[in-house]
């Protein structure tokens, strides 16, 4: 408890410096929070689009009941497959007449249904990447009674490119801001060490252990980081409410992200403090 008590005393004793430090960390993490909010919403939107990705296998007209049952059950047993829906020729015609309203008058007059029956195959979440979809489609097209397989290759590719760009940007922007936050915490802790140099000299003089001298500064970094994380969370929430009410419906961050953000702030703060402590107090008891 002593390191935390001393860290709090040190922060309270230099309120302006402490506030600046926490604000700076908070703003840095707020940018990350905004990015997290954007990334989360993009991710959910992508997931919604991805939900629609399915493989459609058109069946030859000559397929009989037994063969159809066999093909369905075999495809349904693929480890990547979530569900297999059979769409008969009649259902296909009905769907077409419903979806293509401008031709609705033509469909009743058709004597022979030109549309093929099909299997609509949905893959499990996490298995809808271009490679898996392509592999499964190729496997399905190998069946004798499958005439043609379509799965919107371009859509699948685009969705995944978007996700990769979003992930890469998050990594670069997030990493940069985390670095800035670490530099700020490190500077603050270094200033605290300098401000307490006379105390440190006395502690060293009377024989306080190196760990005893160092721990309050690490605690200071941890507290600053956690407080910065909390501030960032508050600012991100305000931004979320504003966006949600005035611009568009936005999803709030998952709980795990919130906890990870605050804990991450603390860890960043402590790492930065540790770096400063190692640099500034490396001469402790060095002879």
């Amino acid at each position, binding site marked *: 408890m002593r390191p935390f008590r001393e860290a709090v005393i040190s922060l309270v004793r230099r309120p302006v410096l402490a506030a600046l430090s926490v604000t700076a960390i908070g703003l840095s993490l707020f940018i990350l929070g905004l990015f997290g909010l954007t990334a989360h919403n993009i991710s959910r939107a992508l997931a919604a689009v991805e939900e629609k990705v399915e493989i459609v296998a058109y069946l030859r007209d000559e397929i009989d009941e037994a063969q159809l049952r066999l093909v369905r059950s075999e495809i349904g047993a693929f480890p990547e497959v979530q569900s297999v829906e059979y769409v008969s020729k009649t259902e296909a015609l009905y769907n077409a007449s419903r979806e293509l309203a401008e031709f609705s008058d033509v469909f009743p007059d058709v004597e022979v249904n030109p549309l093929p029956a099909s299997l609509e195959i949905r893959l499990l979440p996490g298995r809808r990447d271009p490679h898996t979809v392509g592999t499964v489609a190729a496997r399905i097209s190998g069946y004798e009674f499958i005439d043609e397989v379509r799965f919107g290759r371009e859509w699948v590719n685009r969705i995944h490119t978007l996700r990769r760009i979003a992930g890469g940007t998050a990594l670069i922007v997030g990493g940069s801001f985390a670095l800035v936050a670490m530099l700020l915490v490190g500077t603050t802790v270094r200033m605290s060490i300098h401000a307490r140099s006379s105390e440190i000299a*006395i502690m060293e003089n009377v024989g306080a252990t190196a760990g005893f001298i160092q721990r309050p500064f690490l605690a200071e970094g941890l507290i600053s980081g956690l407080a910065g994380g909390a501030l960032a969370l508050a600012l991100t929430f305000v931004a979320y409410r504003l966006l949600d009410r005035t611009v568009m419906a936005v999803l709030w961050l998952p709980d795990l992200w919130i906890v990870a953000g605050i804990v991450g702030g603390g860890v960043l703060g402590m790492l930065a403090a540790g770096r400063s402590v190692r640099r500034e107090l490396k001469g402790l*008891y060095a002879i």
Partner: protein
Amino acid sequence: MIRFRNVTKHYPRSGTALANVSFHVRKAEFVFLTGPSGAGKTTVLRLVHMEVAPTEGEVIISRFSSTRIRRREIPQLRRRVGFVFQDFRLLERLTAAENIAFALQVTGANRSTTRSKVMRLLDHVGLAARASAYPAELSGGERQRVAIARALATDPLVLLADEPTGNLDERASLGVFELFKQLNSLGTAVILATHDATLLRRYPETRVLELEGGRLVYDSGAAAARPPDGDSDDSSIFELMPDGLPRDDTAKQPSGSKRAGPAP
């Protein structure tokens, strides 16, 4: 208890501060370390405190040797070696009692023992009534007493004092010096660095180590300080004054030919 064996200290920028210095200080002994500015007095104290390591030779403090001590052992050594500075080095934002308590707390003392020990120490240095005064409210002599009480907080075997009366008037100096003597009589060894000739003359019975240009040129107690095991490396090399006392002209001729031994 404290032994210097052929100690040389060379600083990269300022050159040689001590050259081949050997001496031995026994338990509960009182020693004046004297010599002009730049003679190496502070370097001797810093070596005893293990703030610096000798370039050559060995410094032994109780069970700690400069050649073998590990970095994590130095805090233990520092608790056995109190240090009093000329400029007091008190924390201005803390009261007299808090300054002493600080030394106790940072060395792991618990709260209940801290309070009673602080009061005992303040009483010991004659400042019980000034416990809640801040350093700025204390006289120079009183501040130095607080600094001494702080140095005593860890029950050291030896007190090092670097020109402790340098910033004090004569009356305060004597008061502080008497306090050192009193502490010494209770069993704490004292090594007091000073170039105050008046002080040396006032206490002629006290052992004097005199440095000049980094060399030990005089040891009034070398024979008495000879280690019991017969190791005479730190005493035989000094030519002692016939009466073992510093002359009145100590300050003027600190390394007079009559008592300056060959360079050790």
